[in-house]
């Protein structure tokens, strides 16, 4: 018997020896409700703080308009942004976060700073935006060097294509082959984030039991939708960053509000790649 077999047998035996205590389901539900309240309260609290700041800003503008003296603001010294962290969908406080994008051809890490300017974002593997203004629905932004693209059925545990093209143009073509997708806009040249890029737009209807995986990224499997209910529209911009083909992505459910699409675009446009990262 080899070590693999010993481990398999012993873990199974050890598990079988355990007698689970009776579950306290009501405690779990109370805890879950408390967790939900905290999440909601955090969102409302930050939203209120943002509203106050916006109000103060409007007051300042009004004073300028009426002849008041506007104090010049001193540019604050730019601090290193907080590192983005997946908290399982927990609230992402407004601010700028540094995300790992991947590595370039020399093996050096590429990072991007991304700014979230309202309190409707959650920190999942990549940031998720909840449509709190125009109705139900969700969307998100991602930026990554893909390690693989969805293949096979596209479902989380299905095949992965790791034989990726090494130019943005060819990678854009590969994106059109994602399983379960319909091409809404074929690959075409655009400018994005001040760089030449290839833009592709797809619609994906998740027919998986749970998660559809778009790509394997430095943060793991990047899934788009967990609910096989409504199709998702994904925009990809593929661009060269220090010799690596980087994908900038926004996605949203098909029927989210136009305000939400604008907010996703605003966040996407805030992306700045960190040089020398």
């Amino acid at each position, binding site marked *: *018997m*080899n070590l693999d077999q010993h*481990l398999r*047998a012993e873990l199974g035996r050890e598990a079988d020896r355990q007698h689970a205590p009776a579950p306290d*389901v009501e405690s779990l539900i109370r805890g879950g409700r*408390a967790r939900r309240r905290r*999440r909601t309260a955090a969102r409302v609290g930050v939203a209120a703080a943002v509203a106050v700041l916006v109000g103060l800003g409007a007051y300042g503008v009004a004073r300028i308009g009426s002849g008041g003296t506007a104090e010049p603001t001193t540019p604050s010294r730019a601090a290193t942004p907080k590192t983005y962290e997946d908290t*399982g969908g927990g609230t992402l406080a407004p601010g700028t976060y540094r995300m790992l994008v991947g590595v370039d051809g020399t093996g050096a890490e590429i990072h991007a700073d991304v700014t979230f300017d309202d309190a409707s974002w959650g920190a999942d593997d990549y940031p998720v935006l909840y449509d709190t203004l125009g109705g139900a629905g969700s969307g998100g932004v991602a930026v990554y060097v893909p390690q693989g693209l969805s293949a096979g059925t596209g479902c989380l545990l299905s095949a992965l294509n790791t034989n990726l093209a090494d130019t943005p143009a060819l990678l854009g073509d590969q994106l059109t082959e994602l399983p379960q997708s319909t091409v809404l806009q074929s690959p075409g040249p655009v400018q994005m984030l001040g760089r030449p890029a290839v833009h592709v737009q797809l619609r994906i209807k998740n027919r998986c039991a749970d998660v559809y995986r778009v790509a394997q990224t430095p943060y*793991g499997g990047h899934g788009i939708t967990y*609910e096989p209910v409504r199709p998702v529209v994904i925009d990809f911009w593929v661009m060269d960053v220090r010799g690596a083909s980087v994908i900038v992505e926004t996605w949203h459910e098909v029927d989210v509000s136009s305000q939400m699409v604008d907010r996703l675009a605003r966040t996407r446009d805030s992306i700045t790649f960190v040089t020398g990262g």
Partner: protein
Amino acid sequence: MDTDEDFREFVTVRWASLYRLAYLLAASPTGAEDLLQTALEKAYVNWSRIGRMEHAEAYVRRMLANALVSSRRRASFGERPTDELPEAIGDSVEEPVLDRRLMWPLVCALPARQRAVIVLRYYEDLTEAQIADVLRCAPGTVKSQSSAAIGALRRALTASGIGEAVSES
């Protein structure tokens, strides 16, 4: 059936199975309960979504593993990960066979992420790619963690004088 009732039924039916996995991941009964409490509270928050999944239990099992490797959770288990496994001292081994009472303490002594990889690989029967998805890391990381864990276990077994009984896998 409303969401709470559906969640109650899920927990009642799946509890024992989830507990066994949580125990292996956390390496202690109290850690297992702590891990389950956290993962199931999180699952409750999103139960309207998770409860509709065809494989809701598989999803919650992933949540358990993911919760373990979160650094915030690790501290609360009172765990002190180490690269050095304790010397394997057990009952005298008269025959060159692996004493099954030896293996589990060695697995318990692995750092949390390495232990998670081992449990997901050998108890949950996941592939490296699937483990990478669960732990949200690169497959290469899973490979290196698995290699480190297997290496540490093999060294400890060799130090106990029974390594020769465990053939290369």
